C-alpha cells in the first residue's frame, strides 16, 4: 500500500462539448502517463456524450496568474472603458449601430 504514495502525476481535463465550442476545463485526474490520462478522462468525464474532443494537460505544466482578485496583473484592462461599445454615445435615431 505504501507504493502508491509515490503518486501518479495530476492532469487537468478539458472537454469540447460540441463542434464550434471551446474546450472547457471540467476537472482533474491522476494517471501514469498521457495516454492513460486520455482514457481515464474519457471514462470519467464523458460517460454521457459530454464531448467530441478531449485535452489532458499535466497540471505542473500550467503557468497561472496569481489567484488574487485584486491582482494588479489584470490592471491594464481595468481602466480602458473605451474598449467597450457602451463608451460611445450615439443618438437613438441612428439605426443599426
Amino acid at each position, binding site marked *: 500500500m505504501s507504493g*502508491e504514495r509515490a503518486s501518479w502525476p495530476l492532469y487537468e481535463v478539458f472537454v469540447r462539448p460540441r463542434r464550434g465550442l471551446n474546450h472547457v476545463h471540467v476537472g482533474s485526474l491522476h494517471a501514469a502517463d498521457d495516454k492513460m490520462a486520455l482514457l481515464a478522462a474519457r471514462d470519467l468525464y464523458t460517460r454521457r456524450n459530454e464531448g467530441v474532443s478531449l485535452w489532458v494537460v499535466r497540471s505542473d505544466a500550467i503557468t497561472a496568474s496569481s489567484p488574487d482578485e485584486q491582482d494588479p496583473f489584470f490592471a491594464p484592462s481595468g481602466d480602458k472603458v473605451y474598449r467597450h461599445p457602451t463608451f460611445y454615445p450615439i443618438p437613438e435615431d441612428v439605426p443599426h449601430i
Partner: protein
Amino acid sequence: MEAQAQVQARFDAAVAAEQRVEPRDWMPEAYRATLVRQIAQHAHSEIIGMQPEGNWLTRAPSLRRKAILLAKAQDEAGHGLYLYAAAETLGVDRAELTEKLVDGRQKYSSIFNYPTLTFADVGVIGWLVDGAAICNQVPLCRCSYGPYARAMVRICKEESFHQRQGYELLMTMTAGTDAQRAMVQDAVDRWWWPSLMMFGPPDGASPNSERSMAWRIKRHSNDELRQRFVDMTVPQAEHLGVLLPDPELAWNAERGSWDFGEPDWSELQQVIKGHGPCNAQRIERRRAAHEGGAWVREAASAYAAKRAAEEASGERSSG
C-alpha cells in the same frame, strides 16, 4: 496581525456576498479542514456505496437490469473520483485519504453498512437512498467552495437516473406477483429508517451545523432536509402501493407537511461507531480491492517510466 484580520474580513465578506472561494484563495484553516473532512467523507461514501448494489451485479434478473446497475455503479465510482479531485485542490493527497478510510480514521455514510438481502433492495436503494442523497446534494451545488460545488453539479445531473431506475424497478415488481410485492415491502421496511438517518442527527445534536451554514457550505439544517425528503417520498410510496413503516406518519394541514416519527438515534450512533451489520465487511472489501490493485498501479508506473526513458534516449541519439 493586521494583515491577517484584513484577509479574514475579505474572506467573510466574499462568502457573505455569495462569491465562490477558489483553491488558491486565502481561507481560514478551520474552513479548509471542515471541507477536507466533508468532501473526503462524501467521496468515501460514493466508493463504498458501490458495494451494497454490486452484491447484485452478477445476479440481476435480466441483461437490461444488469446493464443499468453496472452503469449506476460506474457513476458512483465517477462521483467518488470527482470528489477526491475536489478534495485534492485543498492540498491533500487522494492516496492518503484512501489510507485513512481503510484505517478507519475517516468515515463514510452509515447507510452503506446495511446489507442488500434481495433484488428489491436494489430498487429501494435507488428510490430512497439516492433520493435522500439528492435532497442533501442539490443545495451543495451552491456551496461556497468552487471545486466542491462544481463536482456536485456534475453529480446531481447523474443522480436523477439513479433514482428513476430504482423507482421503475419497484413499479415493475409491484405490478408482478404477491411474492414480488412482499419482497418490495420488506425492503422498504428495512431501508426507510436508515434513509431518514442519512440526513444526520437532529438539529439540536449537530453542533457544527451553524458554522457550516455561516460559511455557506451547508444551506439547510438536517431536520429541514429530512422533512423535505419525507414530503417528497410519501406520495411516491402511495403511488407504488407500499407502506412506509411509521405509525406516526400523518398529514399536518396546518404545517402543510407530513408529521413523522423519531428515528432510533442510538442505532445511528452504533452504526457510526462501527457496529452496523456490515461495517467490517465494507472496509475489508475496500482494503482487499486497494491492495489487490497495487500491482496494476505499479505496472502502469513502471511502463510510463520505461517509455519516458526510451523517449529520452531516442531524442539523444537522433539529436
